[in-house]
């Protein structure tokens, strides 16, 4: 290999590395500068194309990211000028960009990070439908392709592409601003962002349908997003959500048997739990709790941390878990929280106490279609020796879940009941 060719390969690798580490940052800034997602994506593509051509010849710039932003911006202005020959209004826009953003890279690193936060908040704007928030966040913030997103959510690429196109059209036509919400709006807007991240995580951790129980890639993406958000905005609930995801993730290897069967928390081999993730998650929970501004994610993480700290299922501090569920039920009342609290009460005070609570929830009709409510009820009936009731409840749970490993688990439990 000649020296030139070797140099070219090295520069190519460098461009690839910069693409992986910085393309989303560059995109976030270009969207601010150009005011349009599609224009910015095109400019990003053009900027990297220019880098592949010019870096081997001119050398890698001292600040590759700034070079790319600058190159992308010039390419976009060029493109607009070319199109302006057919559409005079674009000339005006191009001139405005030239003046307004003549020195975009002189801005400090902090404002580049602000651009990433702007991008996250815009992709997760509550005026966009939840499906579109997820697709747009994975596409623009995480850099996943439409095909990757479609595969992760078991839908077709055209569906995902359409969601993204419609979302971008709404951002443009309804003029959703590219900004971090003002203080007063922040709690509500942050909730939407956290919810999007948690939905992505859950889809990866507990896939809602299909043959496999989990899709680790999606959980990994959600954790990356959670870390990014926390870097950019150190809010207690951002700490809490990351902690919650890490603590769940720590149990992934123990959650399924080698044969792909679901293993419940109490039956898991705790030596398979990832201690590093538990340590990191627990430390984050402590930080979030000490802020005294924590909410539902932190409380759920605290519960997961209590489980994680128990050396054996029998050594779980159920009193503390019930106490945390009491606080959670006040902070974020929901039938699902009540159900989990009932299961914890059953562990602390015995199955009959838990069953009474679950029957009260089901009597209200709140969780009639929620398979976990029926499988939890079935489990308590089984422990109380009420075999007929247990069989009926396992049966109802079975009719309500679509996921193969969960179905096999319930069928196994049904088979184990005495005649």
């Amino acid at each position, binding site marked *: 290999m000649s020296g030139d060719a070797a140099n070219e390969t090295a520069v190519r690798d460098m461009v690839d590395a910069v693409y992986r580490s910085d393309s989303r940052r560059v995109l976030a800034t270009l969207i601010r500068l150009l005011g349009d997602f599609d224009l910015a994506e095109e400019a990003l593509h053009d900027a990297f194309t220019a880098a592949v051509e010019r870096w081997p010849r001119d050398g890698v710039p001292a600040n590759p990211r700034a070079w790319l932003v600058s190159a992308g911006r010039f390419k976009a202005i060029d493109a607009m000028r070319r199109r302006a020959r057919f559409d005079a209004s674009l000339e005006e826009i191009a001139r405005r960009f030239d003046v307004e953003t003549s020195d975009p890279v002189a801005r400090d690193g902090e404002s580049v990070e602000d651009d990433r936060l702007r991008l996250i908040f815009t992709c997760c704007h509550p005026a966009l439908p939840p499906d579109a928030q997820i697709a747009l966040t994975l596409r623009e913030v995480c850099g996943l392709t439409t095909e990757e997103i479609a595969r992760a959510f078991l839908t077709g690429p055209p569906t995902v592409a359409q969601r993204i196109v419609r979302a971008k059209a709404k951002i443009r036509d309804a003029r*959703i*601003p590219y900004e971090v919400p003002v203080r007063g709006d922040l709690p509500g807007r942050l909730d939407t962002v956290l919810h999007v991240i948690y939905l992505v995580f859950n889809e990866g951790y507990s896939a809602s349908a299909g043959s496999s129980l989990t899709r680790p890639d999606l959980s990994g993406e959600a954790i990356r997003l959670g870390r990014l958000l926390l870097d950019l905005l150190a809010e207690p609930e951002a700490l809490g959500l990351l902690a919650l995801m890490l603590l769940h993730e720590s149990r992934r290897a123990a959650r399924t048997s080698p044969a792909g069967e679901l293993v419940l928390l109490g039956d898991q081999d705790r030596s398979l739990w990832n201690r590093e993730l538990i340590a990191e998650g627990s430390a984050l929970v402590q930080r979030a709790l000490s802020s005294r501004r924590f909410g539902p994610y932190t409380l759920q993480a605290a519960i997961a941390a209590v489980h994680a700290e128990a050396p054996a299922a029998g050594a779980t501090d159920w009193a503390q878990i019930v106490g945390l569920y009491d606080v959670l039920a006040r902070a974020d009342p929901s039938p699902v929280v009540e159900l989990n609290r009932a299961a914890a009460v059953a562990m602390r005070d015995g199955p009959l106490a838990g069953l009474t609570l679950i029957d009260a929830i089901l009597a209200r009709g709140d969780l009639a279609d929620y398979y976990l409510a029926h499988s939890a009820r079935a489990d308590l009936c089984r422990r109380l020796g009420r075999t007929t009731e247990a069989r009926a409840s396992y049966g109802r749970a079975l009719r309500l879940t679509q996921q193969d490993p969960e179905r096999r688990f319930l069928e196994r439990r049904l088979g184990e009941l005495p005649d």
Partner: protein
Amino acid sequence: MKYLCLIYDEEKKVGSMSKSESDAFMGEYYAFTEGIQKSGHYVAGEALQPIHTATTVRIRNGKLSTTDGPFAETKEQLGGFYLINARDLNDAIQVASKIPSARLGSVEVRPIMVFDHQ
């Protein structure tokens, strides 16, 4: 940029207010309107007569048909609107959230389409 805020109320709920409740509600509307006039958001705004006064007009096969009401099966009815000038959607949402009916019914925020005549 202009946005139309379409106000949907439950006529039954508004109609069943006591005199003092309805006076207070109207007072909130006057205060809100004054507020957005001062802030420069206001372009126009009107309240509509109740839904029983509505007439729907269609032309089908060249023939005019007029019918009573829009026959909406929804609980909430279009009761009025504000046309506002806002910086962006977040600004428009801020304004819309202060419309008194946002608490009772709902407000639909729609950007106004701009046609390019060039």
